[in-house]
């Protein structure tokens, strides 16, 4: 059934490795960007709150394909932004990380904001009473507890991100689904074997993530 793999024509591991890299870089990017956004949304500065709310609602409701193709067609092909240059392969990868981070950051932000809501208001008030600034209250008191509360929701965001990386093939990133398209083109007689293969590949990537982070979530949860 999977004999087309024996030809050595397809670099299956290489393609999934690109998927993993995309996921890891974008996860880091969206974690940073999402934390900043969450900070903006709970900040005392009205302008930051308006920006945070507007950005999250705008980008979260834009289809990811549109965000990524927009990065490629808009930023790269029309405005000639190359993010450091190189060939299409590396530009495409960086554009994909940018787009995925910009998009996933909104979900990280919302997950984190729900985590901030689990921290009792009294804690922030007590911190304020000690004379801590807003930044100190947020980074020393609220966020550490918020993060511990939202490990499971963030795991879901990470799993969704892993699967969302397949959209990057639309802008020429040679990840798993791009290889799937090549295999479908050549091995149309084994269509379902190809589908099953890639479905299993993604299960292998996402299932351990879910199990591991589910375990971590239980370990670090703040017992109240």
């Amino acid at each position, binding site marked *: 059934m999977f004999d087309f793999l024996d030809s050595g024509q397809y670099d299956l591991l290489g393609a999934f490795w690109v998927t993993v890299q995309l996921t890891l870089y974008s996860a880091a990017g969206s974690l940073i960007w999402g934390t900043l956004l969450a900070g903006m949304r709970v900040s005392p500065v009205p302008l930051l709150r308006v920006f945070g709310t507007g950005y999250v609602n705008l980008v979260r409701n834009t289809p990811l394909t549109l965000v990524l*193709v927009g990065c*490629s*067609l808009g930023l*790269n*092909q*029309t405005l*000639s932004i190359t993010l450091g240059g190189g*060939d*299409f*392969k590396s530009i*495409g990868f960086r554009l994909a990380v940018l787009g995925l981070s910009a998009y996933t950051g909104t979900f990280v932000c919302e997950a984190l904001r729900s985590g901030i809501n689990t921290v009792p208001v009294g804690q922030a008030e007590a911190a304020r009473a000690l004379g801590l600034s807003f930044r100190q209250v947020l980074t020393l008191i609220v966020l550490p507890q918020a993060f511990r509360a939202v490990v499971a929701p963030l795991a879901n965001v990470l799993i969704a991100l892993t699967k969302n990386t397949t959209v990057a*093939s*639309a*802008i*020429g990133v*040679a990840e798993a689904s*791009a*290889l*799937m*398209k*090549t*295999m*479908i*083109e*050549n*091995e*149309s*007689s084994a*269509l*379902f074997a190809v*589908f*099953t293969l890639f*479905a*299993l590949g993604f*299960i292998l990537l996402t*299932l351990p993530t879910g*199990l591991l982070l589910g375990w971590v979530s239980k370990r670090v949860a703040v017992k109240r």
Partner: protein
Amino acid sequence: MKLQKASAAAAGALVLALTVTACGGDSNDDSSSGSGGGKITIGIKTDQPGIGLQLPDGSYAGFDVDVATYVAKELGYDAKNIVWKKAPSAERENLIANGDVKFVAASYTINDERKKKVDFAGPYLLAHQDLLVRADDTSITKVEDLNSKKLCSVTGSTSAQNVKDKLAPKADLLERGGYSECLTGLENKAVDALTTDDSILAGFAAQKDLQGKFKLVGLKLSDEPYGIGLKKGDTELKTKINDALKKMVSDGSWEKAVQANFGPAGYKNEPAPQIAD
């Protein structure tokens, strides 16, 4: 406990895969009843200008559409009795094998891998992989020039694979979801050339708002004989379609359809290919 969860998920994935397969099998019944009722279902491309394109009003236009309409007429079906069905490249073999369509005319290159699953009538058009460049660009004259160029094609397509494997392994190749997405880059000089079958390129370049902006280079990088795909072993239908195609060439309708669909792009078409029996 956790292991049970994992195996359950794996089993779930398998069940899902099997359900999808089963769906494909079910549709077998629909079509056998459909073909008897005076209607004919034909698979075409709906997103390739010049070949098969769905117009904003819902009708279809293109060379493949003209050929399919002509063949259907010869088989005894009026144009109004044709049911058009979208046939994306990856699904063509399954549409035919499952009996969802009577035949497929969708820029369908005849090759050995496909012949394992379906039979082909024709070929009715000989296309070549070619390059579309900006109208004022004269820097590409031979295949070797491509190695220093930025090319654009569709993810996973045969044309993209040809460039990577054979034609110009050193070329900077951008793979996009669709050919129209490559056109923006070509217009803005982010890419130098768009590569796929010349018939498809001619169709794009012949679109009203793009006429005069792009031109075909005419390198003939590969041979792509387009055939009409039909169910394996249906020699009666194959002979009928071949006869229809021969008639289309001999009475001049073929030449007229080529001129109407590809003419504005300055496409130098090959003469009608010899149709096999």
